[in-house]
């Protein structure tokens, strides 16, 4: 019989955080995730709240209390956001920056926009837009996602307080369709002295630039070493411009988080989805994990649903309506499909907020507002009430609600 105190469903940022915080409370925790973590696609930036009502926020914490009822931050409160970030800071240690301030940092993106974010990989740090040092952006012919000259032009138009130029260079050695993991690997191992070759290719363009930004392919296991080596030879600070998907900063984050989970004794199973459940007396008794053809029962005292939103497949939509596929939880949404969208493509679309509605203990509620199951909590993208993309709040909500749900589940188990 497969059983644990707490069973976490989903292996994205919310699931990992929930599992980790439950394990730290002393619970025996199992994490089941269908696919490999979606962190591989995420930028690796940890946004808490970048925009409110369309305005860029300097300090996300000043606005947390103004969010409407039902917003995930309103449900768990500012303290949970701080706890979630604290857990994150502890696990990521030196790999991330931003914990010294409550203010948002401004990070240049591959498109040449400037993005407000609360935590960022250390490899990204020298690129912050608040710095005034002259910047050179370097793109590679073979990595078409990053057009450095165009990004530089956009940054200039955005009025950044520094000079910025962009060049497109040839990455030595690799063939045209090499994978980003291959770039990372050769830089990690310095195969055939690739680091120096790369420096030689960039030097003629350096000019007076004091910092040089590359697409985020500077190593998988040893990005700090790669960055330092390149920086030393170039005589300038080297940083990454977060890109993707797929994304190496996201993969590094995933690796560190999952190593911490293993360290904390969490059992991890990837590859199979949770597809069904049995309940009695208002409690989930067990869920069923689909292993190729069998539906294998997984028992637990407490369950955390962290299956993500429309991207993670935690929520599905069809002509018939919007569904939460595992527990068939209620998802408030307008009956008429035409009310899901605004006419304006960039308008405030209701569908962006679709998700499970919860009480202040993160337990999903049915259409009458009653708690659906005593021992089920939801965290991360599966929650409704927030427009992650517009608010720039995705990772922050996952950390805050994941931490909160994991802790509560462990305490109840």
């Amino acid at each position, binding site marked *: *019989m*497969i*059983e644990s105190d707490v069973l976490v469903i989903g292996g994205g940022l919310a699931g990992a955080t929930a599992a980790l915080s439950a394990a730290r409370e002393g619970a025996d925790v*199992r994490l*089941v995730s269908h*696919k*490999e973590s*979606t962190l*591989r*696609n995420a930028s690796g930036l940890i946004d808490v709240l970048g925009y409110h009502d369309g305005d860029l926020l300097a300090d996300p914490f000043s606005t947390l209390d103004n969010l409407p009822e039902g917003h995930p931050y309103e449900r768990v409160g500012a303290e949970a956001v701080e706890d979630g970030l604290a857990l994150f800071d502890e696990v990521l240690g030196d790999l991330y920056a931003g914990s010294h301030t409550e203010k948002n940092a401004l990070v240049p993106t591959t498109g040449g926009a400037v993005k407000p974010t609360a935590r960022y990989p250390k490899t990204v740090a020298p690129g912050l837009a608040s710095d005034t040092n002259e910047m050179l952006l370097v793109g590679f012919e073979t990595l078409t996602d990053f057009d450095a000259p165009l990004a530089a032009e956009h940054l200039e138009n955005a009025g950044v307080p520094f000079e910025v130029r962009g060049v497109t260079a040839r990455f030595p050695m*690799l*063939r045209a*369709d*090499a*994978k*980003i*993991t*291959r770039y*990372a*690997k050769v830089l990690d191992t310095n195969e055939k002295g690739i680091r120096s070759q790369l420096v030689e290719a960039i030097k003629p363009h350096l000019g007076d630039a004091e910092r040089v930004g590359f697409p985020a392919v500077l190593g998988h*296991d040893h990005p700090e070493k790669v960055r330092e080596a390149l920086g030393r030879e170039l005589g300038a600070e080297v940083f990454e411009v977060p890109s993707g*998907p*797929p994304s190496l900063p996201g*993969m590094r984050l995933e690796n560190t988080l*999952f*190593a911490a989970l*293993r360290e904390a*004794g969490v*059992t*991890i*199973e*990837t*590859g*199979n989805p949770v597809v069904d459940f049995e309940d009695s007396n208002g409690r989930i008794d067990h869920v069923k*994990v689909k*292993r*190729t*053809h*069998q539906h*294998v*029962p997984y028992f637990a005292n407490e369950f955390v649903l962290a299956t993500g939103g429309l*991207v*993670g*497949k935690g929520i599905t939509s069809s002509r018939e309506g919007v569904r939460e596929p595992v527990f068939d939880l209620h998802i408030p949404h307008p009956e008429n499909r035409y009310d899901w969208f605004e006419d304006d493509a960039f308008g405030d679309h209701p569908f962006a907020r679709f998700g499970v509605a919860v009480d202040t203990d993160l337990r999903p509620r049915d259409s009458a507002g009653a708690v659906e199951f005593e021992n089920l909590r939801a965290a991360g993208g599966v929650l409704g009430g927030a427009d992650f993309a517009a608010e720039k709040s995705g990772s922050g909500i996952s950390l805050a609600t994941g931490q909160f749900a994991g802790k509560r589940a462990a305490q109840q188990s």
Partner: protein
Amino acid sequence: MSDSEKFPIDVFPEAEDMDLRPGADSCYKCSTCDTSCPVAEVDDDFPGPKFQGPEQWRLKRKEDVSVDESVMKCSNCMRCDGACPAEVPLSQMHNTARGEYVREEMSMLSREYWRNRILANYGTLARVGSKVPRLTNAIMGNSVVQRVNEKFLGITAEREFPDFATETFVEWFEARGGAKVQSDEKRVAYFHGDYANYNTPEVAKALVRVFEHYGYEVAVPDQRCSGTPMFANGMLDDARRAAKFNVEIFHDLVSEGYDIVCSCTSCSMALRQEYPELFSFDGTAEVAAHTYEALEYLRIYEDVEGDLKGANPDVPDLAYHAPCHARNQGLDGQAVNLFADLDGVSVTDVGDSCSGISGTYGWKEENYDTSMKIGEEMFEHMDDAPGETGLTECPTCAMQMGHGSGYEIRHPLEVVESALVE
């Protein structure tokens, strides 16, 4: 329950006439599969799973092009399958493409073809070799023979051929008089595959003893190779013959109330996923639906977790590597979790990298270096873990672990045997 509920796999009903179409359209080019491919990470010449699967199909559909030879560099680790958020059946596409490549592009007179065919049909070789195990071991271990193999067959001389046991598992099982436990309720049919039979009968014996300990009647029917090495080499005709044989035998047993258990994770993968993806003999779906990895089975039906708590097996500290095919079945955390509370033994997970050998892949002269490069991370982590003994479910991962570290490698079933059966 209706049949379609029980066997939700008939997405591609005409599996045998399949082209590369299925799922190509649902690919949204996110490239996540590429980031999980261990070969693309170290091999410049490998264009990655996205190309091998959905892109190659799109190309083929538009123009009259043939399957690209780079598909032979895919090691069939199936990691891309587990990565794709759009559920594109990548490994199924690769298996099919490889089959087409071998059928249409590869000369049957070429060295590669025969080398691959020999490697893929390891069982035939083993059947002959195991008749005179000591002689075969002496010959295969001979460095002159190894160099000849490399020169004429392209089988790397860097690796030591695995020893043949002096008594095969099946010989042992028959000599002991077959099953020692009779039961009408608890019955398992053991798919041991070639490797446990000819090379590591101790693993197969452990399975029998552990299942008998729990009161199961164990059947050991006649069987052929699961087909995994044949899929990986595009030898689909050989695979079809083997699969058909296995499906017929095991389907009969399923009808008699047996569930199928495997001690090799690539075997369970083949029976439960690759067979129904590629073939549709009568009974394929039922066999797939009743196949389990051995420990997985006990975890579902017995309290093996509880029984192992505080047990004190006679095994050293172990460095565990989860085979890619275990990962794909969601079994990657199983052994470490099960053995966490054993007394006096530490079991350390050496991380989620691929071992790099992927069955026959790392035996080919041209892949040897790539294979060792992929395995490097695992070797390092093994080195950091306490103890000097490895642990894994997959026989070829075990070879690679032993080859790169010099460690002796055990199977989780041997640990359970030592803990529960005196």
